[in-house]
């Protein structure tokens, strides 16, 4: 068994040396397939990070009617009602004085206007942080609609009401990316099929001889499977390298623009598990290619 594996290994390495262009073409195709898959993953991975960062910024502010303070019966009722809601992570009461102090600090140009008014026009409020997994548009709409009906609440405000529009745009981007992926995927499959056809032709005589001498199907397949492993490994490693180059280019040239829109946003490369998955997928593709190219002759 092990001596056969050693033979398959040496055969596959020798075949690489004897037919470098044939193998290189397969490596390039596998690399292309892995690259397309990888770039989509890279895109999706960073898009999810953008979405997460947007969700993290979503706050709900509940403005209370005048004269409601912590300790009041109405306030207790509101607090109790909010704490019962499973979507809430934390609550923070902001008194009208605190709100005014914050306003004065952040908007010093308007201090005179406040002084002119004579009294504090800002209401007390409760700042609500939502749990991460409940920060989707529908949950929030439902939550806000429920809040509006509570006695003692004057108004409800969600920071970032542009989010709805953003998610609509995101859905469109995903659809376009999906269509492009399918089209490129069909193209790659077509190229792989044709390359396998050429490979089959180059191997037909060799396979016929092996069969006539008494080799079993598995013994014939062995070297081709090993070749597939090399091709897959080579192709997927190449694709990860190109992906990293693309990632570095985007990071150096576009990250600044993105962080302007999404503060603190950074492009990240694929995590180790995904990289290993791409390498595994490439190897699997190579093994399938080797298997398909021999199977036709082994069926005879």
């Amino acid at each position, binding site marked *: 068994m092990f001596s*056969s594996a050693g033979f398959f290994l040496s055969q596959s390495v*020798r075949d690489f040396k004897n037919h470098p262009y044939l193998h290189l073409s397969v490596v390039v195709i596998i690399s292309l397939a892995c690259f397309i898959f990888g770039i989509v993953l890279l895109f999706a991975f960073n898009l999810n990070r953008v979405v997460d960062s947007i969700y993290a910024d979503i706050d709900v502010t509940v403005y209370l009617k005048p004269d409601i303070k912590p300790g009041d019966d109405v306030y207790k009722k509101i607090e109790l009602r909010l704490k019962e809601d499973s979507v809430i992570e934390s609550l923070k009461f902001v008194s009208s004085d605190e709100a005014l102090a914050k306003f004065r600090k952040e908007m010093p140009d308007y201090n005179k206007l406040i002084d002119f008014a004579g009294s504090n026009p800002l209401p007390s409020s409760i700042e609500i942080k939502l749990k991460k997994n409940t920060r989707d548009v529908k949950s929030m709409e439902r939550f806000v609609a429920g809040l509006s009906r509570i006695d003692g609440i004057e108004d409800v405000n969600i920071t970032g009401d542009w989010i709805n529009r953003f998610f609509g745009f995101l859905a469109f981007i995903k659809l376009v990316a999906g269509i492009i992926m399918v089209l490129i995927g069909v193209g790659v499959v077509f190229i792989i099929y044709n390359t396998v056809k050429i490979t089959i032709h180059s191997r037909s*005589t*060799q396979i016929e*001889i092996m069969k006539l001498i*008494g080799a*079993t199907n598995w013994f014939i397949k062995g070297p081709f499977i090993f070749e597939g492993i090399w091709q897959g490994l080579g192709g997927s490693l190449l694709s990860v390298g190109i992906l990293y180059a693309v990632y570095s280019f985007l990071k150096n040239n576009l990250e600044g623009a993105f962080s302007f829109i999404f503060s603190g946003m950074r492009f990240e490369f694929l995590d180790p598990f995904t990289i290993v998955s791409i390498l595994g997928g490439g190897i699997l593709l190579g093994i399938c290619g080797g298997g398909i190219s021999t199977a036709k002759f082994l069926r005879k």
Partner: protein
Amino acid sequence: MIQLFHVNKVYDGGLWALRDISLTVKKGEFVFLTGPSGAGKTTLLKLLYMAETLSDGQVVIFGKNTSRLKKRSIPYFRRNIGVVFQDFKLLRDSNVFDNVAFALRILGRKHSEINGRVMEVLRMVGLEKRYRDVPENLSGGEQQRVCIARAIVNSPALLLADEPSGNLDPENAARIIDIFNQVNAKGSTVIVATHNVAMVRELGKRTLHIDNGKIREDSTVRESDVQ
């Protein structure tokens, strides 16, 4: 050892290659197949190593009816048969050593055993110094000897040779026949298809003369050759 019962072979397009062939070859026999080109010699050999399927009749080898042999059993069946192909059928990308060693590798033999046996057989065919060469660097006669070495390396129970001396000079042809005799002496059945009447006469072995797909004569030495 080998029994053929009313075997017919018709190729696609209606070309009759063999007609109602019945014969028996005993274990350890040395048989020549003679006849003109297109007589059916190669087809008969191909039926024996199952490179062709018969159209009608029965072929029994090693006690097994080839028509009833399961597809997955064919490789194991072929391992008992060494074949010297007319067109050599050498692995183009493998050198002389690896071509011959392949027949042992499929049997899962150990490296040390393979190395020793392959070199022994290459010495027998006079190619021990060319073991690193690939087939394209060898002459036709040398390629034929590689093919012979591969056919005999695992001491098969049945050795089939299709025109094994076709590309050889008289000296090498005699050497090859000597090797076949050695293999035969060790108990293997040998069937050789050839045009070389002089060689057949000299050896005085059983000869089956085939013409137009039929066995016309089955004799130690053909009458027409003697005249």
